């Protein structure tokens, strides 16, 4: 089974099918393509035109694999639970059972269980929330959400008081796209210190070295990035923003913030925020895979080998869920993971020698292409370190939206002896709501590590348990789930 039909999942499914294996590919979105190609393949959608022609061609080429015999694709489908370590009834192979829920599609309603020999997790990324007072008011969403509404449904922000606040390449891209399609942006608030964040490890000389190796690894990416940093598109830009606050009764009405020039207030009815993206590790956590803190990305990533395989398990992780690296690397990782999974399921001893050798050579080539491109990604990580939480958050700032847990609640729990993220969860219900910590989990780890002055690894991450998404009892009763 492959979970996620973005660039990584499509490439992985294609590689598995090409090796003669049957693949169940599932994805939460109504159409394949992941977040990067969201809406690109939907001919009836008004958002398709937001994608450059080149992106539509790439998405269509990647989705070609869905025509291959052997691949069954289900959209609007979510994983609810997964269990490992099961021996097949007729042998000693290790099997994985996955409970999944398809919301639509002929004959697909209800919870079902699929038993598989290999699982490839290509669940992509989540956006890192920006914590500030008033952030839960209606009218505030993520920059990725704004872009998704444009790409999928052709919705463009058009009212007076549209503001972007945050940092990083996605925010610049969203600004350019909104303006290109006739939308309106009144102001851009740069949350990083001007011009591009304070380099951390290695200081300025380290950053220069990273820039140099990135320019060699992917000159076109670095050139595009530099060009996008040069233009503000004529939109009023505030740099070095801190103490961001949203004000309003039933929805956002006004923003206030400080810069080196003083205090500012702006009318605002739509605010899109962005602080980079995080690997979506809900499923890898649920499966109990080992994770390690990625200091440059300020996030936990699953521990995997070169091909994305988790140690000792028939589980592979590919794409941004393995560490943020962008869609091009995701597609290469996906293909590599698919080939490796195929080799693991059908050992070379049962295959003609030339086919095995061919597979080996392809894996080698893919590994080299991945290694060449990685330095460019490191530059983005170094340029845009996560916004420090204390730059905007106050004691009454909500960290967990589902359970309405504030920074003050978390601090009180820590003062009362909660010595890790999961203890804070027990004390406060932080991360115990419908989203299962997708929204607050990364911030909670960083807050606990900061307050206790321990490493993020020691602070820990929220334990993820089934169901991965809230599920109705009737889904269990009606479905074909074991």
């Amino acid at each position, binding site marked *: 089974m492959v979970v996620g039909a973005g660039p990584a999942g499509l490439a992985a499914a294609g590689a598995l099918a090409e090796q003669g294996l049957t693949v169940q590919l599932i994805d939460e979105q109504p159409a394949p393509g992941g977040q990067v190609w969201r809406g690109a393949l939907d001919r009836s959608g*008004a958002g398709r035109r937001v994608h450059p022609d080149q992106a539509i061609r790439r998405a269509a080429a990647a989705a070609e694999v869905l025509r291959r015999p052997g691949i069954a694709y289900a959209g609007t489908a979510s994983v609810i639970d997964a269990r490992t370590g099961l021996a097949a009834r007729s042998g000693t192979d290790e099997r994985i059972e996955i409970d999944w829920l398809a919301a*639509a599609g002929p004959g697909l309603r209800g919870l079902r269980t699929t038993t598989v020999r290999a699982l490839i997790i290509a669940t992509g990324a989540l956006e890192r929330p920006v914590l500030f007072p008033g952030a839960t008011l209606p009218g505030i969403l993520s920059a*990725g959400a704004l872009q998704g509404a444009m790409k999928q*449904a052709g919705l463009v922000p058009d009212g007076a008081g549209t503001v972007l606040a945050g940092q990083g390449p996605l925010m610049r891209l969203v600004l350019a796209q909104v303006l290109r399609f006739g939308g309106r942006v009144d102001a851009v608030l740069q949350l990083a210190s001007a011009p591009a964040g304070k380099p951390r490890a290695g200081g300025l000389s380290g950053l220069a070295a990273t820039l140099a190796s990135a320019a060699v690894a992917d000159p076109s990416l670095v050139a595009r990035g530099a060009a996008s940093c040069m233009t503000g598109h004529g939109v009023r830009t505030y740099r070095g923003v801190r103490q961001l606050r949203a004000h309003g009764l039933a929805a956002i009405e006004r923003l206030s913030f400080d810069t080196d020039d003083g205090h500012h207030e702006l009318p605002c009815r739509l605010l899109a925020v962005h602080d980079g993206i995080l690997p979506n590790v809900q499923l890898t956590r649920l499966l109990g895979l080992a994770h390690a803190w990625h200091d440059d990305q300020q996030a936990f990533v699953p521990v995997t080998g070169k091909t994305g395989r988790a140690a000792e398990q028939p589980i592979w992780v590919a794409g941004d869920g393995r560490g943020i690296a962008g869609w091009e690397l995701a597609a290469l990782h996906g293909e590599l993971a698919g080939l490796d999974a195929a080799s693991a399921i059908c050992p070379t001893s049962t295959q003609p020698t030339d086919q095995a050798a061919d597979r080996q050579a392809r894996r080698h080539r893919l590994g080299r292409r991945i290694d060449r491109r990685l330095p460019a990604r490191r530059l983005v990580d170094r340029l845009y370190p996560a916004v420090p939480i204390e730059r905007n958050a106050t004691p009454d700032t909500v960290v967990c*939206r*589902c359970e309405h847990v504030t920074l003050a609640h978390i601090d009180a729990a820590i003062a009362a002896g909660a010595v890790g993220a999961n203890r804070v969860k027990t004390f406060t219900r932080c991360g115990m*709501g419908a989203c299962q910590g997708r929204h607050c989990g990364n911030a909670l780890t960083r807050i606990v590590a900061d307050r206790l002055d321990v490493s993020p690894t020691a602070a820990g991450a929220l334990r993820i348990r089934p169901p991965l998404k809230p599920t109705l009892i009737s889904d269990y009763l009606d479905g074909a789930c074991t």
Partner: protein
Amino acid sequence: MSGGVWRSLPRTDGIPVEVVVDGLPVRAYGGETVATLLLRLGHDHFGRHPGTDRPMAPWCLMGSCFGCLCTIDDRPGSQACLVPVSDGLTVRTGASAVAGSPDTPL
């Protein structure tokens, strides 16, 4: 300030479907999800927090924040951002869809 927050790009093709939102039939188009339909119709929040009664609004529109929960085709707690529009779909907004808040009586 007045006026809408969102505008739709012109549609070149696609036949509209009819979705029933809080009892009223509305036109919806290919590519729209229940969440983007509600935003286009001017809903800035779709429900209320069961503990605090504050309005809950979509934040991520990609299935992770659970801010867009509605009752869709009689299914409570549906993620509006993941459900594509279809003919005859019924949507109810305003429900307190997240159970289990500390302030909610059991």
